[in-house]
C-alpha cells in the first residue's frame, strides 16, 4: 500500500523531518534548542487544553452519574463551560488577608503547578518522541509527587488561618503515608523490566506483546488507590472537604489563584493517568495498532480512559474519614505493597536466573491476581464497615451501660 510510508514518515512522526533538516543545514545546537522549544510548546498545549477539557468532562460525567444533566447552558451541550469558569475566576477580586505571610502567600499556586507540568516531560508519546529520556524516569516521577505536598503545606501555613493549617496538616499526613505504597508499587514494573527508563518499559511491553497490568494487577491497584490519595480526589479528598473545614488549604485563595489550584488538581489527574497508561498499560502501543494510528493519539486515548476511571471513582464512592484512610494506608496498603515486592522479586529471579520460557508469566499473573483480589476484598470491607467500636473512656459511674448501635443495614431508625 502506498499510503503506509506516508503515515509512518510524515503524519505519525512529523518533527523528525524538521530536526533532520535543521541538523544538516543550520547546526546541531540550534536544532536541539528548536526541538526542545517545540516539544515544550506541544506538551504545554496538551496540558492547557487538557485542563480546559477536563473541567467540562468532569462536571458532565459526574452529572450523568448523579442522574442529572450537568452544565448545558453555556454552549452547545455546555461545551463553553470551562471558558465561562475561567472568565468568572479572572474577574473576581483577589483578596489577601493582612495577616497572611506577604510574599509567601503568592508562591504556592505557582509552586504547585510546576511538578504537575514536569511530569509530562518523561512520557513517551511515540517510539522516538520522548521529551526527556531519563535513565531514572520512574524515580523522577516519585520525586515530583513529593514536592506537591510541600507546596500545599506552604499554602495552608501562609494563610494564617486555623482551618487552612488543619487542612494542610491533614494533606501532608496523608501524602507521606501514601507515598510509601506509591513508591513500592511503581517499583514492581521496574523489577520486571530491569530498567527505570520509561521508553524502555514501554518497549518491553511491546516486545512481549502484553501489558504489565496483566502480569502485575496488584501493583496497578495499589498505585491507583495511592495516586488517588496523593491527588486529594474523592474518596480521599479530606483536604478540601467542604463540609468539614470550609475549603481546606485553599480557603483564603480567591480568584485566579484558586483557579490555579483547581486546574492543578485536574492536570495532576491527567499526569497520574498518564503514568498508569505508560507503565502498566503499554503507553503508546496497542498490540500493533500503533503502526497505522499515530501513537500519541493512542496514548491520549488511554489517558482519557483512565481519567474517566478516576471520575467514576469520584462519582461513586463516598468520602472516607481520615482515620479510615490512614488505617488503610498503614495497615493494609503498605504490607500488601511489601508482600508484592517480595513476590515479584522472587518471580523475576526465577524467570531470569533459571531462564524459563516467557509463558511462565501466566502462572505469575494468576498468583498476583489472587493477591489483588485479597486487596480488593479488604478495601470493600473498609468501605462497608460499620461503627464497630465504641469509645472506652474510664467512666465515673461504671454501671451505666452504653446502648450499642445496630449492625449496619439491619436497623431502620437513625
Amino acid at each position: 500500500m502506498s499510503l503506509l510510508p506516508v503515515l509512518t514518515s510524515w503524519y505519525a512522526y512529523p518533527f523528525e523531518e524538521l530536526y533532520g533538516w535543521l541538523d544538516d543545514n543550520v547546526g546541531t545546537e540550534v536544532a536541539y534548542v528548536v526541538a526542545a522549544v517545540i516539544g515544550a510548546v506541544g506538551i504545554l498545549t496538551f496540558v492547557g487544553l487538557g485542563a480546559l477539557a477536563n473541567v467540562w468532562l468532569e462536571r458532565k460525567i459526574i452529572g450523568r452519574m448523579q442522574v442529572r444533566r450537568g452544565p448545558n447552558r453555556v454552549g452547545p451541550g455546555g461545551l463553553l463551560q470551562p471558558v465561562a469558569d475561567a472568565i468568572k475566576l479572572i474577574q473576581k477580586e483577589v483578596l489577601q488577608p493582612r495577616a497572611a505571610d506577604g510574599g509567601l502567600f503568592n508562591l504556592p499556586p505557582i509552586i504547585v503547578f510546576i511538578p504537575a507540568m514536569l511530569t509530562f516531560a518523561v512520557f513517551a508519546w511515540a517510539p522516538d518522541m520522548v521529551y526527556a529520556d531519563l535513565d531514572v524516569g520512574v524515580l523522577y516521577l516519585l520525586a515530583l509527587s513529593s514536592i506537591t505536598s510541600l507546596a500545599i503545606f506552604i499554602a495552608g501555613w501562609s494563610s494564617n488561618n486555623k482551618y487552612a493549617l488543619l487542612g494542610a496538616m491533614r494533606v501532608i499526613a496523608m501524602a507521606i503515608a501514601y507515598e510509601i505504597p506509591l513508591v513500592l508499587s511503581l517499583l514492581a514494573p521496574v523489577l520486571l523490566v530491569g530498567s527505570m527508563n520509561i521508553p524502555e518499559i514501554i518497549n518491553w511491553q511491546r516486545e512481549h506483546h502484553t501489558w504489565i497490568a496483566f502480569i502485575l494487577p496488584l501493583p496497578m491497584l495499589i498505585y491507583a488507590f495511592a495516586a488517588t490519595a496523593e491527588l486529594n480526589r474523592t474518596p480521599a479528598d479530606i483536604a478540601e472537604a467542604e463540609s468539614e473545614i470550609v475549603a481546606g488549604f485553599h480557603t483564603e485563595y480567591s480568584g485566579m489563584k484558586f483557579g490555579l489550584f483547581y486546574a492543578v488538581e485536574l492536570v495532576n489527574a491527567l499526569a497520574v493517568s498518564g503514568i498508569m497508561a505508560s507503565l502498566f498499560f503499554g503507553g503508546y502501543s496497542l498490540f500493533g495498532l500503533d503502526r497505522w494510528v499515530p501513537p500519541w493519539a493512542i496514548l491520549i486515548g488511554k489517558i482519557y480512559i483512565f481519567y474517566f476511571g478516576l471520575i467514576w471513582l469520584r462519582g461513586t464512592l463516598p468520602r472516607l474519614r481520615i482515620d479510615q484512610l490512614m488505617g488503610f494506608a498503614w495497615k493494609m496498603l503498605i504490607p500488601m505493597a511489601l508482600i508484592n515486592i517480595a513476590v515479584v522479586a522472587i518471580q523475576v529471579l526465577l524467570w531470569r536466573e533459571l531462564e524459563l520460557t516467557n509463558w511462565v508469566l501466566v502462572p505469575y499473573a494468576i498468583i498476583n491476581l489472587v493477591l489483588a483480589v485479597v486487596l480488593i476484598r479488604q478495601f470493600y470491607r473498609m468501605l462497608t464497615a460499620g461503627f464497630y467500636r465504641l469509645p472506652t473512656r474510664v467512666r465515673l459511674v461504671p454501671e451505666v451501660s452504653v446502648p450499642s448501635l445496630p449492625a449496619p443495614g439491619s436497623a431502620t431508625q437513625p
Partner: protein
Amino acid sequence: MDDLAVVIAFYVLAGITLLSALMVSIVRDLIHAVLFLILSFIGVAGLYITLSADFVAVAQVLIYAGAISVLMLFAILLTPRSARDNSRVSYAAPISAIAGLLGAVIIFVGLNTEWAEVDREIDGSTARAIGNALLDPYVLPFEIASVLLAIAMIGAIILVRPNDEEGDL
C-alpha cells in the same frame, strides 16, 4: 564539561544554592529558613545533575526536599510560636570569622593539591552501576544502613510517645 549550557547551569545553580544557604541563617522566621533550606537542597540536586549523577540527584530531591524538610516543618509546628525565632547567639561574630577562615583554608588546600584528574566519559546509567555496587562490594554497609534506619525509626517513635498511657493515645 565545556558545553556552554552546562557551564551556565553550573554557575546559576551554584549561585542559587549558596545564596539560599546564606539566607537560612539570615531570615528572622524559622519557617522561612526551612523554605530556603528546601531551595538549597533543590539547588544541590541541580548541581549533581550537571556532574552527571542523575540517580543521586533524584534521590536527593526525593529524600531531602520531600521527606526531611517535611519532618523539620512538623517538628517546628509542634513547638510554640515563641520558640520559633531564628536569632543568633551572642557570640556569633567570632563564629563567622572561624567559619570563614576554615572555608578559606579548605579552598586553599583544594586548589593547590595535585588531583589525579581524568576527563571521563559517562557511560550507561549510573542507577545500574550504583545498584551493582550496593549489592556486590558494598553489601555489608547496605545492610547496616537499613538496620540503622529501622533503629532510628523505632527510636524516634519511642522518644515522642506520651509518657502517660491510660486509655487511648
